[in-house]
């Protein structure tokens, strides 16, 4: 919590952070306080447990054998340990291949998105571009359109140009559809960089490209990391664009491949559970690795 200014009337309490507990009466004396703390933790543990229950159950089911699930029911405690479900989903269900496709789509999409968005944001925030505000809002507006209105034209146009059913088209569409949002967030971030830094570079004879590459981009790293983590998750999790632009089963990324797996292993809940876990692992890993960036990215994005 940021520096809480202790008002003159503040009740003296053990820790200054206790004062910032908004909306509920501050804990007062000894026994009442520890009771309150115990109550809080009980409630919070219960809430977290309710939230985590579906995940725990899916993890357990994904490790049970089919006979066990059929014999003892989905909710029973495991009577078997059968990691083979993961092998079934991985090879038989095509998750391995789909993960490769997802990487081939998501990594360049994220890199391109950040590169192009930071270029536009740099020019629009650090220089006097005619109509800059209009341009920013037009680009942002494109990102806010419901994707449904683009589906038929994008599918048909890519057929006309002979690029239907290619990963390149999917990458272009993912990049193009996201750009406006990232430009908007990044230009806001870049505007807060002090002008003096840029002027100093200018005096040293740096051109716009050097200022962009050597000065503004490094200073924008926190925002780029946050947006990169977000963009990866969004593109990796996307269902609508892949099923609109692609048709060949073997080109599908993870999310649509999961639906194929669902159709292939009807009622094999253990294999479907294993497939869902495999599909969730990469984004969970990104979240855990970049947790702070991720959360700040959501709030950056929230300047909506």
């Amino acid at each position, binding site marked *: 919590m940021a520096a809480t200014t202790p008002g003159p009337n503040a009740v003296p309490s053990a820790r200054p952070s206790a004062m910032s507990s908004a909306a509920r*009466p501050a804990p007062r004396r000894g026994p009442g306080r520890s009771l309150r*703390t115990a109550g809080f933790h009980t409630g*919070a543990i219960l*809430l977290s447990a309710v939230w985590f229950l579906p995940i725990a159950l899916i993890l357990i089911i994904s490790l049970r054998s089919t006979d066990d699930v059929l014999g003892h029911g989905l909710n029973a405690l495991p009577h078997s340990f059968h990691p083979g479900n993961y092998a079934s989903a991985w090879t038989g269900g095509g998750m391995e291949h789909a993960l490769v496709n997802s990487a081939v789509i998501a990594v360049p999409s994220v890199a391109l998105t950040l590169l192009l968005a930071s*270029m536009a944001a740099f020019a629009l925030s650090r220089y006097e571009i005619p109509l800059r505000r209009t341009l920013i809002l037009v680009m942002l507006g494109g990102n806010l359109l419901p994707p449904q209105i683009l589906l038929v*034209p994008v599918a048909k146009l890519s057929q006309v140009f002979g690029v239907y059913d290619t990963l390149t088209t999917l990458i272009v569409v993912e990049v193009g559809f996201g*750009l406006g949002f990232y430009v908007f967030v990044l230009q806001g971030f870049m505007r807060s960089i002090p002008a003096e830094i840029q002027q100093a570079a200018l005096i040293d004879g740096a051109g716009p490209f050097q200022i962009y590459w050597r000065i503004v981009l490094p200073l924008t790293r926190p925002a780029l990391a946050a947006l990169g983590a977000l963009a990866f998750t969004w593109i990796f999790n996307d269902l609508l664009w892949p099923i609109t632009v692609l048709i060949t089963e073997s080109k599908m990324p993870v999310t649509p491949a999961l639906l194929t797996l669902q159709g292939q292993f009807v009622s094999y809940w253990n294999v*479907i559970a294993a497939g869902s876990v495999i*599909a969730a692992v990469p984004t969970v890993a990104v979240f855990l690795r970049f947790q702070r960036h991720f959360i700040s990215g959501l709030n950056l994005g*929230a300047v909506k």
Partner: protein
Amino acid sequence: MSVASTQAHPAGAATAGGLGVRGSRGPRRDRRFKPFGPSPLLIAFVVVPLLIESVAVFWPAIQGVYISLTHWNGVNPPTFAGLDNYRRMFDDPVFRKALENTAIWLVLFGTVSAAGGLGCAMFLQRERRGIAVYRAALFLPVVFSLTATALMWQTLYQPRGLANGLLSAIGLGSWQHAWLADPRTALYAQILPALWREIGYVMVLYLAGLKGIDPALHEAAKVDGASAWQQFRNVTLPQLRSVNAVVLSVIVIDSLRSFDVVWSLTQGGPYNSSQLLSTYMYQTAFVNTDFGYGCALAVVIFVLAFGVIVSYLIRAFKETD
């Protein structure tokens, strides 16, 4: 510029006259700008992304509106049909059902995720031991894809799954149900996983907002003898106004995009009982290859989202000073 800091922005440059700062090298805020016009490189920096967005978004959007005015099955060339496709909606019971379901989804999903997200944020706002773990538990589903979430819940909804198991455990065995197969419950059974995923997201937005409230305000209210409810009503809620606006746009945009869950589980069935505008649009265009009517449905989705999009852009406009 987090949500919290948006309140700090003076609403200064919000006048409509601010559109297009062409040639305004005047005293306004020139110390931010380099003292000469854009070089070719800078023009390329703007034009290249703009071109890509035009090819992927703007041009297709215009095409989409045009296709909605045609009859087109993808085999024969499209024929101009005027407003035929829009007239057809009035006699289309599936459209009415989809519109109704979209409204139900919007209201239920919207109110529960906003209230739940705010409640969780207030419950978990204080920095204390273990708080990060609780927050992470609520946030974790946000990073799952809607499709993976849907498949997890599909398992829980099976006749012998968790949902029915819990009901019989608390003595409500008679409420047991084939949740996704019953037209009366299919829609609601699919809102639940979407909520499970959205509440953590909304919580994070509200946590940032709550952090931005000056604690002195609460201190002052307390000194004046305000009850917890009065503090919430008269300090917390008004201070969260800008976050509320954010949450509202996020929720509306997310509900209109909530295609993935329904497409993964019931594809709008059984008997169109859980059809949403987004799933009906996809089905019409890509399963029934009725592109004209499909695009007309997409235009309806756009019109419904229009108010939110515009209010979002107005807020963005104020922020880009």
